[in-house]
């Protein structure tokens, strides 16, 4: 017991520096920003207290709802895009051969690239005149499908979600491979003896064994998509006419382009609340499943 107590003390002391940094740079600013959300403030000069007016304005602003909708599009696209693709790739590339190691690195590659580079590359791919996307479609005889992918408000959110998914599959692949390696070989042997293989084995043995990992990746998808910012800022800046605005770019633009720090702070507080709600939903959904 005394050793446990002493190591608890050590743990506390060892955690202290990290905790302090976290407190100063994350927790306190969050509350500060929530506080500024009740003010009308230009970033410099006088700030005037206006109560909940920023929030009222936000709920009335169609751009806020559009940004929220775009974020939800990203959440859905990453859950139905990244997770299954990463899972399939993990199962296919599970063996440690040279080939699968090469493909694994290739899939992980965009994760290592700076997001600005990813954004610029895809900006050129989607270029309305010289882009490869339109070029390939023309070669396939699909001229009628060519369009200005990032300008056309009907398709641009979809066009943006593709590079975001592409760039983020890597880490999920690694997580899934690690989970698959944790399944002990005896289970595979037992499955073979019982005559289970292929789809049947995947559905009844592999998936249930790594289900908790799948749930974690979904949580990561949700939080990652709500934070999405950099790819969009590089590719469209939230435009044209705010059609690809996300909550984070909306917050950024209202704070730093229009100089409404108070309103921007209110939006960032709202992002926290939305994330908390989604994660709570996820929490209750998975708890029901496990009980």
């Amino acid at each position: 017991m005394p050793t446990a107590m002493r190591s608890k003390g050590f743990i506390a002391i060892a955690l202290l520096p990290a905790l302090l940094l976290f407190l100063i740079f994350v927790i306190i600013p969050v509350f500060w920003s929530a506080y500024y959300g009740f003010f009308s403030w230009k970033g410099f000069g006088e700030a005037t207290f206006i109560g909940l007016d920023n929030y009222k304005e936000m709920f009335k602003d169609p751009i806020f709802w559009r940004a929220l909708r775009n974020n939800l599009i990203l959440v859905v696209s990453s859950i139905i895009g990244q997770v299954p693709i990463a899972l399939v790739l993990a199962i296919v590339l599970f063996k440690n051969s040279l080939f699968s190691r090469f493909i694994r690195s290739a899939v992980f590659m965009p994760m290592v690239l700076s997001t600005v580079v990813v954004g610029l590359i895809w900006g050129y791919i989607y270029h309305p005149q010289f882009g490869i996307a339109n070029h390939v479609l023309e070669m396939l005889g699909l001229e009628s499908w060519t369009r200005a992918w990032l300008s056309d408000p009907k398709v641009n959110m979809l066009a943006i979600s593709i590079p975001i998914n592409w760039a983020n599959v890597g880490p999920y692949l690694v997580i899934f491979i690690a989970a698959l390696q944790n399944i002990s070989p005896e289970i595979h042997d037992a499955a073979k003896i019982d005559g289970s293989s292929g789809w049947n084995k995947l559905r009844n043995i592999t998936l249930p064994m790594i289900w908790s990992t799948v749930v974690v990746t979904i949580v990561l998808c949700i939080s990652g998509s709500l934070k999405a910012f950099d790819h969009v800022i590089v590719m469209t800046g939230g435009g044209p006419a705010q059609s690809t605005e996300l909550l984070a770019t909306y917050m950024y633009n209202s704070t730093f382009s229009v100089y409404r720090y108070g309103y921007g702070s209110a939006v960032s507080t709202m992002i926290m609340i939305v994330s908390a709600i989604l994660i709570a939903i996820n929490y209750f959904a998975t708890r029901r499943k496990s009980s």
Partner: protein
Amino acid sequence: MRPGRKIGLVLLAMSLLLAACGGGKSSEKAGESTNGSEKVKLTIWHNFAGDDLRAKAVRSYIDQFAQDHPEVTLDAQAIPPDGYRQRLSTVAAANEMPDVFFVYAGSQSSELHQAKLLQPITEVLDAHPEWKEKFLPGAFDPFEFEEGQIYSAPLGMSATSILYYNKALFEKHNVKVPTTWDEMMTAIKTFNDNGITPIALGNKAPWVAQSTILGSLADRVTGTEWFKNAAAQQGAKFTDPEFIEALGYFKQLVDNKAFQEGANSIDNTQAEQYFIQGNAAMMISGAWTLTNLAASSTEEQMKDIEVTTLPAIPGGKGEANTISGGAGGGLALSSRTEGKAKELALELIYTVSGPEAQKSIAESNSMVMYDAEIDQSKVTSLYYKAYNLVKSTGITPVYDAYLSAEAAEVINNGLQEIMMGGSVEDVAKKLQDAQARSATP
């Protein structure tokens, strides 16, 4: 016990490291205060970060100042233009302005002035009358926040709506260079029929269409006075029929497919390249295009390019043959800089925006608000044409220099909306609401 001891060791090592760091810092500070008691620290922030001639010219004058003043520890920060406004407003929010910093003419500098973050530089201008007098008329207008008190000397001139055209393409398709709106429409139709983009536009950063096209176009329809009244929200509103008409002309360009497809998702530089490679017959852009083209294209490509003003609008209240523009940004002085540091900061401003610097900037193919004798052989032929054009035309206001930051954002996005098929009346109403909000605090 073992892991416990290990953690203890790690902690010990960490605390030693921390102590070492702390020690380093404090000794540095001590050295500063004993040896360099006369050293004055000055910081300057500017956005001349690029590799273009103008940025290099400006930076060389900053370096010269540092060389001439060994008693100054000069901390010069070149911040790329894209992030410059944000960086400056971030330090403004924290009231940690550098001593000398580049400010844009218009809403940014006036907002900083209102927040009492600037102090006038009138004394250095008065100390060099031969310098002050050579500035072109109106050069100090955007920086004279109080009668007789000038807060910055412009380092450049923004001419934002020059009509660049490819003479070879006009001759090949037998099109007249448009001087009236009808001729413009004919030109657009002819080029479209021949598979050439009439006007190249890169409006991904949405200020482009507003700054280069709308300002000049609308001024021809409404006249300058109406715009200034509307911006001040005195006796004119953006929902007035003349502004709706002006936006209508822009919509007419969109509806006649004057711009290439996807203009809203490529940036201005890409549009310049598209134009210079002969894919488009015209481009409406600012003087910055001269600088960019000088840096990135050959004299061969540029020899076909000519410059003129936007065509006249039938029955418009504004003058034709004008270009939207005005004094560019300049260096400003922080209100917190005092004493010896202030003296040297003013000296720094004079070095970087004085007569020699103005001449060098003009000779780097970029417009100045200053009567400089330029060496013709040092500039590109296209710049020389534009320089003569701008000297012979009137200057009308650029929209976002007079609108509040929020209203500018609204009209920028509004033009993108019109390009996507949005309604002119809605955009006008949104602009009016935004400007009214900021004009009546």
